[in-house]
């Protein structure tokens, strides 16, 4: 009895999690002219239509460039921070760790507003540099946290062993530390990429006329055009994210780091 109840609960949870996604796919496969569920007839034409929209193509490219660039920059900043926090018991190290995770805790919409008001406007940054700065700032905490997790499993005396065998500190880091946290860095990259690519609240404040990330472009598109292409695009993006995360889990064991 109780196990049947448990099974039912589990099914409901899955339905709750996956249901909206299934509805979106179904809505995107509609043959009709407006976004609706259940779909009016079946067709894949809206999936093809997505690729015809110029603003989607441009914002997709920006989103990809932004996600890759900001994630790489966040890693360049985050890996040394994670390394320093792991290896040197700095005074205030714990406070710094907390501070670095705060963008994860503070509502993103507040982060977006604050960045706009106190960074982008005073510095008079263009839209693309502003997006880079904002996304990098958002992703540094992920980079620090994920890389810290893999550094925690690595003994520090291997660096000393390398030094005594003739390596300098920099060589010791690149020859013994980096290869052993490679999976953590890849995991941080994937997590950062997905986070940046799906980012809405912060980007909302920073995008402007003619330059926009894909999720923001989709929001604008829906304001004016209410056809199933938006559902088709959402389904494609969700599948892309899922494929990335599944591959990462399969090859890197992503869930060990997050």
């Amino acid at each position, binding site marked *: 009895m109780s196990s049947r109840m448990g099974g039912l609960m589990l099914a409901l949870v899955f339905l709750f999690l996956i249901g909206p996604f299934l509805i979106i796919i179904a809505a995107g496969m509609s043959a009709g002219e407006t976004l609706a569920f259940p779909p009016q007839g079946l067709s894949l034409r809206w999936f093809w239509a997505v690729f015809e929209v110029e603003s989607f193509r441009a914002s997709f490219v920006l989103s990809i460039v932004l996600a890759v660039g900001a994630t790489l920059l966040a890693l360049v900043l985050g890996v040394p921070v994670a390394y320093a926090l792991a290896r040197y018991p700095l005074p205030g190290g714990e406070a710094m760790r907390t501070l670095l995770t705060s963008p994860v805790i503070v509502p993103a919409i507040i982060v977006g507003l604050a960045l706009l008001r106190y960074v982008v406007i005073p510095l008079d940054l263009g839209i693309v540099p502003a997006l880079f700065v904002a996304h990098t700032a958002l992703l540094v905490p992920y980079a620090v946290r994920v890389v810290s997790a893999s550094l925690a499993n690595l003994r520090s*005396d291997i660096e*000393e062993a390398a030094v*005594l065998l*003739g*390596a*300098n500190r920099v*060589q010791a880091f690149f020859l*013994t530390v980096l290869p*052993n946290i490679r999976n953590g860095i890849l995991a941080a990259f994937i997590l950062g990429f997905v986070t940046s690519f799906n980012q809405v609240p912060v980007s909302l404040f920073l995008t402007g006329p003619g330059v926009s990330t894909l999720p923001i472009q989709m929001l604008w598109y829906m304001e004016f055009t209410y056809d199933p292409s938006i559902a088709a695009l959402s389904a494609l993006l969700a599948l892309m994210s899922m494929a990335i995360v599944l591959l990462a889990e399969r090859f890197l064991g992503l869930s060990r780091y997050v």
Partner: protein
Amino acid sequence: MSDAAFLDLAGMTLGYDGKAAVESLDLAIKEGELVALLGPSGCGKTTTMRAIAGLLQPMGGRITLGGRDITSLPANRRNIGLVFQSYALFPHLSVFENVAFGLRRQRTPKDELERRVAGAVAMVGLTGFERRLPKELSGGQQQRVALARAVVVRPRLLLLDEPLSNLDARLRLEMRTELRRLQRELGITMVYVTHDQEEALALADRIVVMRDGKIEQMGPPEAIYETPATDFVARFVGFENVFEVRDGQLRAGNGAALPLQAPVDGDTAWLAWRPHAVELGQGPYEGRVRGTSYLGQSVEYLIESALGPIKAEAPAALPRHEAGRTVAFGLPPAAAAAITR
């Protein structure tokens, strides 16, 4: 072996965050010598070793190696090998690449590199294991890789930090013999850090007993074992019964005292008995048997006396003293190690 000091530590003061863990230490080691730094944890032996390796900058003093002052020479240019307690193998590299690491830093030509790695791997009996990763090896095998990795670069000095402490008892004995053989074969000067007196006695040419950052006694194993210089060393090398001598009495730490069984020299400060040196079943003192343990060849007794607990040992063939019974015992000064003032 020349008589001049090969490694010379002069007035070394070492510590972390401005607090000294080792104060003004002087130690001279000859070329080809195997010296054990022996002491309980926190005595400064590992700190001293790290300073020799260059992993810790001394707060004061000077280190000379082969006549050259290396006090401020960076660790990666000292050519001193270190075998870590944890082995510290590079987890992503094969046995071959672990051993080759130091040679690659020296840009050793390929054929010479391969020959020397093969030689080092063969020396520790791991031929055929070159392509394995450290995690695919047993603890003893990892130990051997760490050793091969440290000696393949022909270091001027080899430091070993409790290298056998993570091995089981049987393997520990085997590796001990092997280390001794290697040291003789390579003629390499070694500093061996351990808290295990048995290991130090079996391996070292000379033992340096350390306590609270200072040298308590140094000398050949026989001298340390038979004639400890202080009550601390006596307790550390297995003299279980150590008492202060004052006014013709034996005094325990708890203030209790018993008259001496026989007169001793006036400058005797402490007397120390190993368990087997305690006379059991006869003698001027009395105590109650609190517990016995059978050790095979002998039986160990714990006796509660006016001086506190006494550890005695008697051949197993003799009649046993049952727990709870009162037994006479003696502490003959002639059988004790005398520590003078």
